[in-house]
């Protein structure tokens, strides 16, 4: 049995108040556990997306890097690095947030559809072109992956928080309210019974005195 709340006076007022509080806690518990379940189902959905995207990014990144290394072997590392410095930067990503069950999650968009290579063809190898195009392709997936992983992190944090709250309500607050409620009810009943007998007793004493 859970402990009763300390410092509670066993009065009817308190009993009503605690009943109100318990109702509130039970409502909150129901809502929060629904939220938790919804968040977890959302979480499951996104984990599958993340795993396949991650695999795709990693394998294509590996390919792109090996093309880059090939290009470095053909042209020399310094000239590859020089060319890389000259590349026109892509547009910035546009960031917004999306609300999943009250959790703000990242959303990103990227607008750049450049298929043109801005460097000269004279001193560069075809391998470098391949690597560049591959990296550009991957960039879109990387932004998507960042979005998904960010979402997972935020959702995970929120799930943890919600779980803790649900557990606290379920295992601490609600039992405590119930125990206190029961305690007050018992005390009040006891008092009423005492009162009842006192009255009976007084009645019989008075009756005896009147008869005498």
């Amino acid at each position: 049995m859970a402990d009763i709340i300390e410092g509670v006076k066993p009065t009817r007022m308190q009993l009503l108040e605690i009943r109100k509080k318990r109702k509130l806690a039970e409502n909150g518990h129901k809502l929060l556990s629904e939220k938790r379940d919804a968040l977890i189902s959302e979480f499951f959905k996104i984990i599958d997306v993340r795993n396949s995207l991650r695999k795709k990014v990693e394998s294509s990144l590996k390919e792109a890097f090996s093309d880059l290394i090939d290009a470095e072997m053909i042209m020399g590392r310094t000239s590859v690095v020089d060319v890389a410095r000259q590349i026109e930067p892509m547009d910035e990503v546009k960031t917004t947030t999306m609300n999943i069950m009250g959790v703000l999650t990242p959303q990103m968009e990227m607008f750049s559809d450049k298929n043109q290579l801005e460097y000269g063809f004279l001193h560069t190898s075809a391998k470098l072109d391949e690597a560049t195009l591959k990296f550009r392709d991957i960039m879109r997936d990387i932004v998507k992956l960042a979005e998904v992983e960010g979402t997972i992190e935020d959702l995970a944090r929120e799930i943890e928080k919600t779980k803790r709250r649900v557990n606290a309500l379920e295992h601490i607050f609600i039992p405590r309210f119930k125990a206190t409620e029961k305690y007050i009810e018992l005390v009040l009943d006891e008092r009423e019974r005492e009162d009842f007998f006192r009255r009976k007793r007084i009645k019989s004493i008075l009756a005896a005195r009147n008869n005498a």
Partner: protein
Amino acid sequence: MKVVAVGDIDFIAGFQLAGVKEVYESNDASKAKNTLEKIKERKDVAIVLIQRKFAKELRNYINEWKFNKGIYPIILELPDHKDNEEYEDPMSEIIKRAIGVDLNKR
């Protein structure tokens, strides 16, 4: 917002080719950490791409950062061409903490 990349010379060359403007070269984990420290102060960064070999060494630092940050920036660990070995996915730890089971080990 911006995308930044932190890694060794090959890593950043690759992302420069992809159009990432801000790249920071670092040859070891402590230098990478200094760079991350600077990025942490900024508000205009959306994605931080970090080479996995540095991220592995800075795992604690990154986790702490992830725990305290808001929505952005998102820290993304990416492998380079040399990364072949199996490595521990930091995401599975997060998943495990959230739902109590490790889904990737099904």
